């Protein structure tokens, strides 16, 4: 397992006084977890990863793997990175071009300070690792004669060859083309399950994070704003930033009509006067200003005047544009001066200028905490 407490590492830019880095990050992962640090570039996710690896020295905090303390600012402990026994895959793969595939993968065993490996052991472990990443038989190939996807696999084999307790992946898929990325995403997940290794994965790609992770930490400007399972992150975003960053969404502002208990439905009076019911994960007091999020795919469009079932809420608007995407149609509907996105099945057909009703179940609408002014995502 991996334990990180109050990890802080701040970089001050001398030119614009904006400080990057990570503040007070804490998480605790059971063994075998696939954990993702997700956020836009510059949010501090890579800094967090490099602090765990030992490539950066945190300003303060605690990092431990299993029972072993790797970093503890209070006790002034900092294990050098080469003694941490962590596997890591770099964004650029960092495959050494002057070595063969075999030598690249064997390197961690050859330089190991913990124990000496005999050459038979090295041969066995390296071949095992190469088999695991499905590169059996590639050992003698020069590293320069590999495709991007193969380099990726070699980097992975090198990271796992010494059976580390923790695997760190720094945007490993971002240098691959789209089709290969899809394939490696599945492959990586399969591998992680097979080895059962605790994994920390850094990405800015929300689809990747949702597809692969057991748990996700969404990071905004150096702070972890939500740490939860993928579905929770998607359907119950903790704040406006998460709602915008993960997937696509429509945000409305209004005031709570009555006091609402946490995790129950309440009614919101929108600024245009219409009322909508939604889930309040944190509860609310009467009259409190709130922001609500409605996912485009939760909205069902219906022609104006058609009766709507009572358990759905309704807003009215005018279709502005429709884009046919194949598996769906994306409509932009003007509702009281605001543009609302809605995803509909491909067989619907509404024309621009047509009056429509937007209907949605209240359970799919969620009140989110307002983020500060900066435009999120």
């Amino acid at each position, binding site marked *: 397992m991996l334990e990180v407490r109050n990890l802080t590492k701040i970089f001050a830019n001398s030119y614009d006084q904006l400080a990057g880095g990570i503040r007070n990050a804490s998480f605790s992962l059971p063994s075998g977890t696939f954990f993702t640090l997700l956020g836009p570039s510059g949010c501090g996710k890579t800094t967090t990863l490099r602090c765990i690896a*030992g*490539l950066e020295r945190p300003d303060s905090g605690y990092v431990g793997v299993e029972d072993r303390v790797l970093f503890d600012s209070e006790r002034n402990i900092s294990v050098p990175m080469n003694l941490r026994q962590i*596997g*890591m895959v770099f964004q*650029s793969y960092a495959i*050494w*071009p002057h070595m063969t595939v075999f030598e690249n993968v064997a*390197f961690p065993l050859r330089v190991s300070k913990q124990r000496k490996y005999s050459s038979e052991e090295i041969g066995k472990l390296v071949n095992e690792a190469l088999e695991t990443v499905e590169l059996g038989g590639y050992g003698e190939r020069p590293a320069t004669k590999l495709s991007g996807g193969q380099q990726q696999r070699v980097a992975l084999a*090198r990271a796992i060859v*010494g059976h580390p307790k923790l695997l760190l992946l720094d945007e490993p898929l971002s240098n691959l083309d789209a089709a290969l990325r899809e394939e490696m995403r599945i492959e990586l997940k399969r591998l992680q399950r097979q080895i059962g290794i605790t994994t920390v994965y850094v990405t800015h790609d929300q689809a990747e994070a949702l597809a692969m992770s057991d748990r996700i930490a969404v990071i905004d400007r150096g702070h972890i704003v939500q740490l939860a399972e993928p579905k929770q992150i998607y359907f119950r975003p903790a704040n406006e930033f998460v709602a915008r960053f993960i997937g696509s969404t429509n945000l409305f502002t209004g005031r709570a009509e009555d006091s609402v208990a946490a995790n129950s439905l309440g009614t919101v009076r929108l600024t245009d006067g219409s009322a909508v019911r939604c889930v309040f994960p944190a509860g609310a007091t009467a009259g409190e200003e709130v922001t609500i999020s409605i996912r485009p795919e939760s909205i069902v469009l219906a022609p104006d005047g058609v009766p709507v079932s009572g358990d759905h809420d309704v807003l009215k608007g005018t279709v502005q544009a429709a884009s046919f995407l194949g598996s769906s149609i994306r409509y932009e509907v003007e509702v009281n001066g605001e543009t609302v996105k809605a995803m509909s099945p491909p067989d619907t057909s509404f024309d621009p200028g047509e009056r429509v009703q937007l209907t949605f179940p209240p359970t799919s609408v969620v009140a989110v905490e307002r983020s500060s002014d900066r435009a999120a995502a």
Partner: protein
Amino acid sequence: MISSDRSGVLEGGSTGERRPLFSRLFVDDSRRTFAVIVGVILALLVLPPILILIQQSLVHTSTGGEIIEVTLDHYRRLLDDPRLPQSTWNTFVFALGSTIISLLMGGVLAWLVERTNAPFKRLAYATTIISMGTPYVLYVIAWLFLLGRAGPVNDLYRSLSGSFGVLIDVNSMWGKILIEGFLWSPLVFLLLASTFRAANADMEEAARMSGASVFDTVWRISIRLAWPAILALSLFVFIRAIEAFDVPALVGTPGRVNVLTTEIYYSTKLVPPDLGHASSFSVILLVIVAVLFYFYSRISKNAERYHSVTGKGYRPRLFDLGSGRWAAGAFVLLNFLVVLVLPLAALLWRSLLPYLQGFRLSALQNLTFDNYATVLGASYYLEYAWNTILVGAGAATAIMVLTAIAGWIAARRGPGAVILDQLATIPLIFPGIVLGVAVMQIYLRVPLPIYGTLWILFVAYTIRYMPYGMRYVYSGVLQIHRELEESAEVAGASSVTALRRIVAPLLSPALVSGWLFIFLLATKELSIAILLSSPDSQVMAVAMFDLWVNGQSGELAAFGLVWTVVMTLVATAFFAWARSKGQDVFGS
């Protein structure tokens, strides 16, 4: 259907690329005109020196210059001469020794400065900048002061040991190797520093994460990755040391230790000059250098093999040397003292004394500014300086204009790209002294009255430094995305307009860097100028050489220091400019 379509497109594209040279020559009129004009100028500059050397090495001439007979005598005489194997061996030992010294000093320094947390890093760059502004002649002379028989080093040795001998005989092979090594170490530092700076830090971090210690990482990863670059640079320095004239001529002569370049020089100084002998020697040197450059180009191509995609713009993490940090700092400091402070201090000391004296307190009472007064008061020193600047600036300008066009066409694979590239690169194989011999003979013959004027120096310098201009422009053009040009042409601009309005402005950082670099080199040039400058067209390096030969070392030191201050300002401007424009200082 789709696949056949695509292969059709691909085939069309590739035949377009591979159209034979002659049919491409007629595609684009203005580019072709440019290519032809520049190609002819380059050919007229570059080819005659080679031809005249070969011709002169194969004929006997009368004193009036008419050819009497075609003969292999010069070569026969050369091969029978016991001095040829001796001076070839000397050249080899000298070049190898100084390559090793400059590589060790410059290489270790570059690694410490770029990849570790050693202190005093700025000193290393200060050393490089100031030494770029120091003429080689002056630098060599400074070391002759320091290591000479009466110099402070041997002085100190004698007073410590009580003997009457010397610790270092500066006129020996060792003396020459040491000084040439010091001379090259700043350039080695500069080039390897950029190699280490550009290294992908992920490669080292991956090794550290794999459990490797600092030593393991440096030994198994960093050095291996930099190895092709180090090898290529070693060969480059080796070639330059073979061509070296300043050090062997100034240091080697008293000890009668000749190398190939000094052999050539002395046979032109015979009365009457033995130009056939000099030419055959030159041809041999030319062949040696050409062969070495062939290997150099192969190795440096190989060096690019290890260039890999770097990840995001993380500053490379520096190695923490721990307590070794201060030992590393001591090395940086020592290098600063040895390569820069000591020689400059020796010159300063010499310039302030009426005659040569060791570093002693008793000498202080003789301190005088007389030498400076003489130098600043005499109009001919100003004239030398003016001549030097004029020729340097003229050659740099001519080269940048020519190579801006040649380099652009070559980098864009325009008409005659390969020919232009090769023509502009040929002068690399000319050692300065060989080019001097060749150009001298050409303009003794052609009816162009430039012999003995600054113009002949201008022509020779333009030939000699052409490859550097080409290198700056070529890599500069490659950094300009081709589509920037193409979109100008799509917008209706002719390719000349595109060159003038789009390429030239974007290329200006490379052009200015190249100009300054060539100017700095040309103002130091001794080996060409010593054969071509006359009393009416004296340049600075030759004047210094003469002062040294005449024993006017006080004036020489004063003049040299004043000149160095001015050139250091130019060198500083060069570095500042290159840095602000993100240019690599060596155009690569």
